[in-house]
């Protein structure tokens, strides 16, 4: 078992597809909450082989994309402070804020370093005691525990020059906002696999029960997504609405309780600003009082100035699933991965970047 190639078998895909075609009767719309699923759907041409009755829309599950300009501006303002080093996941580097990006700040002399892990940021802190190293905490429940663990480790080691700017967000409140708005009619939800590895499928039970929205947690290989679609179609055709798991090898009902404990030790929930949604109560994570000295928001006083949105960019509507990237007038014309206007074109799992990369403009 390699846990990868097995889940790419075209024979098994054929069987699942036949099953989907044979079972699907109603016209339905399914949302991939997670940008990673959108990538799988496009990379393996899944949209093209599904029955016409099934429409797929992408959702807000791209942490970089939903980061509001006000937060980006703060990160960029921090980068411009003397003796500050910013450590960030690469996806954030090119994202345009209200006035420039981290990349531009870097070109103008700011010390911005791309890292793969918060552990790399800890190492940079250890090796550069004369600098204040701020890690940009971006990500959902998948990533927040890793950043929480890095803060615990910094505390243990007595590292005094490690800070976190937490822009972490949690998924269920955003999904609730999406469902409450009634803006897009959804018949089923492809639930994020690695968020669920932490939260467990229990996180989606309220959506299945209270909103009557069939939910299935999916992995990221093509067979995972096909199996998830099949399970959703079955729920819909049978008139059921449950929170099920297709990704059983990585996700349980309970999730990773230990990781959630680490996360709860370091972070507490707060209001967060989501691109496309605005402020959602209880949807963000900030460092709790005990860890205030690691909190870049508390320690550094910067004025990022007023947040301004790029003119014409439809990222907000794309993230709510109401506009598809080719419907944005800037798509492929003014806005490309080389010269992105909005974050959905920058992040490797942003819808606009996925449509651009896999020729998604040829479909609708």
């Amino acid at each position: 078992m390699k846990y990868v190639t097995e889940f790419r078998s075209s024979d098994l895909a054929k069987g699942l597809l036949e099953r989907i075609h044979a079972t699907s009767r109603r016209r339905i719309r399914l949302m991939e909450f997670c940008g990673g699923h959108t990538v799988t759907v496009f990379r393996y041409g899944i949209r093209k082989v599904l029955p016409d009755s099934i429409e797929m829309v992408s959702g807000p599950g791209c942490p970089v994309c939903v980061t509001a300009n006000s937060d980006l501006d703060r990160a960029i303002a921090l980068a411009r402070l003397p003796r500050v080093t910013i450590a960030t996941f690469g996806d954030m580097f090119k994202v345009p804020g209200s006035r420039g990006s981290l990349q531009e700040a870097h070109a103008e002399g700011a010390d911005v370093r791309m890292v793969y892990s918060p552990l790399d940021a800890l190492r940079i802190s250890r090796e550069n005691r004369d600098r204040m190293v701020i890690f940009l905490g971006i990500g959902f429940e998948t990533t927040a525990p890793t950043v929480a663990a890095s803060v615990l480790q910094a505390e243990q080691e007595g590292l005094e020059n490690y800070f976190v700017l937490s822009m972490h967000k949690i998924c269920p409140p955003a999904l609730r906002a999406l469902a409450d708005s009634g803006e897009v009619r959804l018949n089923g939800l492809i639930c994020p696999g690695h968020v669920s590895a932490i939260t467990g499928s229990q996180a989606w039970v309220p959506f299945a029960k209270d909103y009557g929205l069939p939910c299935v947690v999916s992995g990221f290989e093509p067979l995972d997504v096909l199996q998830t679609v099949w399970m959703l179609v079955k729920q819909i055709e049978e008139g059921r609405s449950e929170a099920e798991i297709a990704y059983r090898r990585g996700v349980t009902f309970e999730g990773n309780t230990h990781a959630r404990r680490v996360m709860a030790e370091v972070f507490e929930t707060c209001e967060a600003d989501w691109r496309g949604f605005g402020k959602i109560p209880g949807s963000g994570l900030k460092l709790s009082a005990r860890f205030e000295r690691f909190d870049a928001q508390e320690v550094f006083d910067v004025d990022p100035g007023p947040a301004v949105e790029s003119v014409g960019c439809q990222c907000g509507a794309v993230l709510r699933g109401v506009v598809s990237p080719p419907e944005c007038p800037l798509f492929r014309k003014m806005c490309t991965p080389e010269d992105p206007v909005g974050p959905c074109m920058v992040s490797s799992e942003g819808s606009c970047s996925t449509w651009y990369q896999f020729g998604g403009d040829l479909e609708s």
Partner: protein
Amino acid sequence: MCLAIPAKVLSIEQMSAVVDMGGVRREVSLMLTPETAVGDYVLLHCGYAIQRLDEDEALETLRIMQDSGLLEESR
């Protein structure tokens, strides 16, 4: 960003492990999955193992997929 990659745990020393990711070796933290044992496959995200993979469940999933195909063929 929520990408997590399966990796096999080769050795463990305290809270860190050496894993094999398709031929590449890496050191990762087990702070979020302290119950991990040598030989386990874990989901790796940002330098941390965030969950252990369950081989029985993986085989069962493949079996279900197989059955779904066979059912169609025998129809």
